[in-house]
C-alpha cells in the first residue's frame, strides 16, 4: 500500500494480530494457562497496588494479549511492565482465573532478551553479580545507610555494629556469619549455579544487559573448571551406579 492510501483503521487491523512482540509472548507456555478470555470486570485493577499508583492496568495486559494489540503491547514492553509488583492479587481474585502477573513475567523475560530492559535494570548490577558469583543474592554489607537513608537513623548503628552482632547471633552456626554474602555457599555450589545459568541460556540473556558480568562469570568458571568438573564426573558415576 502506498503512503497516500494508508488508512489508520486498516493499519491497525493489519497489525492487530501477529506483531513481533505478540508472537514472542505467545510462545511462552505459561500464557495458555494465564489467559482464558476476559470479562473486563476490573477486579484485577481494583486489587492491583501498581494500578493504584501508576498508569498501569492488569486488565489492559490481558485485553491487549486477547486482541493482539501490538501497539499497546509495545508500550508495555518498553516500560509499563516494570510497574507490576508481582503480588499476584490479580491471579488470586480473577473470576476467569487469568494471571496478568505471569503474563508480565513472560514479557519481562522477553524485554531483557531484546535489549529493552537497560533502564529498568540500571540499579541492578550488584544483585545480578552476587547471584552469579556468590550463589545467593544479598549481602549484609549491601544494606548501608547511604543506600537506604530513608530506612531511619537506626540503620547507621546497625550497619556499624553488624559484624559483632552477627558473630554473637551465629555462635555455633558455621557459614552464617558472613557480611559479603548471605551465607557461605561452597565454591562447588557456586560453580553448579553458574553452570545452570550457562546451560539454560540464561547467562546469555544476562549478557544483553550486563555483558561484563558474563565475562566475570566465565572467567570464574574457567578458573575452577578442572576441579569442579572432576567432582561432577564423580557424581555422575555415582548416579549411574545407583541406577543399576
Amino acid at each position, binding site marked *: 500500500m502506498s503512503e497516500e492510501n494508508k488508512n489508520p483503521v486498516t493499519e491497525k487491523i493489519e497489525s492487530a494480530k501477529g506483531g513481533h512482540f505478540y508472537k514472542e509472548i505467545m510462545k511462552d507456555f505459561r500464557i495458555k494457562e494465564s489467559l482464558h478470555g476476559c470479562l473486563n470486570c476490573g477486579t484485577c485493577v481494583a486489587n492491583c497496588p501498581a494500578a493504584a499508583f501508576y498508569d498501569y492496568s492488569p486488565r489492559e495486559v490481558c485485553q491487549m494479549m486477547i486482541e493482539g494489540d501490538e501497539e499497546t503491547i509495545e508500550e508495555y514492553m518498553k516500560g509499563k511492565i516494570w510497574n507490576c509488583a508481582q503480588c499476584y492479587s490479580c491471579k488470586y481474585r480473577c473470576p476467569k482465573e487469568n494471571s496478568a502477573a505471569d503474563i508480565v513475567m513472560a514479557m519481562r523475560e522477553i524485554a531483557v532478551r531484546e535489549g529493552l530492559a537497560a533502564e*529498568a535494570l540500571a540499579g541492578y548490577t550488584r544483585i*545480578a553479580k552476587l547471584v552469579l558469583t556468590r550463589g545467593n543474592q544479598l549481602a549484609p554489607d549491601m544494606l548501608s545507610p547511604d543506600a537506604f537513608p*530513608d530506612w531511619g537513623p537506626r540503620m547507621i548503628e546497625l550497619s556499624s555494629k553488624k559484624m559483632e*552482632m552477627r558473630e554473637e*547471633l551465629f555462635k555455633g552456626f558455621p557459614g*552464617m556469619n558472613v557480611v559479603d554474602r548471605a551465607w557461605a555457599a561452597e565454591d562447588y*555450589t557456586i560453580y553448579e549455579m553458574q553452570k545452570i545459568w550457562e546451560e539454560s541460556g540464561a547467562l546469555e540473556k544476562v549478557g544483553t544487559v550486563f555483558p561484563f558480568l558474563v565475562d566475570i562469570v566465565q572467567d570464574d568458571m574457567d578458573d575452577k573448571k578442572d576441579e569442579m568438573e572432576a567432582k561432577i564426573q564423580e*557424581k555422575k558415576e555415582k548416579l549411574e551406579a545407583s541406577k543399576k
Partner: protein
Amino acid sequence: MSYEINDVKTGINHAKGMNYHAHDIRAEMQKLEEEGEIKIGHIIGPYKEEEVMYGIKKKVPLDMHYQHKSCGQCANLPGVPRSNFYYRDKLGIKYYNDMQQTSCTAWNYHASGLGNLVQLASVAARNWHRAYEEGYNFTIHCVTSFGNYLEMRHLLVGNKELRDSVKKVLAKLGRELVIPEEIVHDSEIAYALRDKILAAADPKRLEGIKGLRAVEHYGCHFFKQVSDDIIGGKRPIVVGGLASHLGVQMEEYSKWFMCCGFGFRHILVNREFTRSAQNIKLKAIKQEVDPDMILVNCTGCGTTFDKTQWIQKAVGEDYHYPVVFYSQLAALALGAHPFKEAGLNFHVTPVEPLLDKMGIAYS
C-alpha cells in the same frame, strides 16, 4: 457514622464443597513417578496432616528438616533463620543447614526478568536434590522461595517439555529430578508444631505474651501465587493460628489482603511506591487496631514493614509497630534471648517497648 465489625476468629475458613474444582497435584505426581518420569522425595519420619483448600490434606514433616535459607533473612533479618534453628533445637528436631544450598533466585527473577524458566526450575530441582541426597525433608524459610517452589512444582508436573529441559541440565551436574512430596513453608511447620511449642514454652514467657494484641500479614507469594496448597485454604491461618495458640489476641484489619509494597524491585528502585503502599496498610492498622506488634512470615514483608515506618514522618504520620516473625515469637516463647538468639536487635523499628511489655530483659 461509627463502624462495627464482627471479628473473624482464626480458623479454617476455606471454600468447602466446591469439589468440582479440586484436583490434587499429589495424584499427578504419583502417576509421573509410576511412569518413571520423576522421582518423589518421600517424607522421612513423622508428619502431621493439616488441611489446605477443598479439605485436601497436606503432610507437614515434623523432623529431619533441610533448611532452605532465605537470602534476605540471612542478610538483613538474621534473627529469623536463627529463630528457625532455635525452636528446632528446643524441640529436639534434627535439621541440616546446607552450605551447598543456592538462592532460589526467585527474588531476582521477579524483580528483573533476568533468568528463564529452565534456569529457575533447574535451580529449584538442584536444591530439591540436595535435600534428597542428604536424606532430609525439604523445608523453606522464605516466602518468595515457597511461592516459587510451588510454581516450579506445578510447571514441572504439568509440562513434559520443561521437565525434559531441566533433566538435561541436571544431568550435566550429575543430578536427577526429584520433587519433594510436599512443598512446606517454615511458618506452616511452626503452626503444625504449635502444641509442641506451647508445651515446651517457658511459663514466664507465656505470661508475658498473653493478651498482647497483634495483626498478621502474609507474603503475597505465600498464598496468592499458588493458592491451593496453603494451610488454612484461601485465607491462610498459620501465623495467627500459632500466635493465638500461644496466647496472643489476634485482630483483624480491613487491609489484610493488600500487598505490603515490597514489589521485589520497587523497594530498591521505586521506593515511593513501597512507602505509599505501606502508608495505606499502616493507616488501617493504626485506625482499626493499634496493635502491640505486626506478625509476619515473609522476608520481603518483614523488611518492608520494619524499614518503611520511619519515613512516614515525611507525611506527618508516626508509626512504631514492632515487626516480629512467627518463629521469633515461637523462640521468645521457648525462652530465647531476644537479641542473642532471636535477633530482634537487627530490626530498625524499635522492639524494646514490646519486650518491656512482655517482661523480657534485653540489656
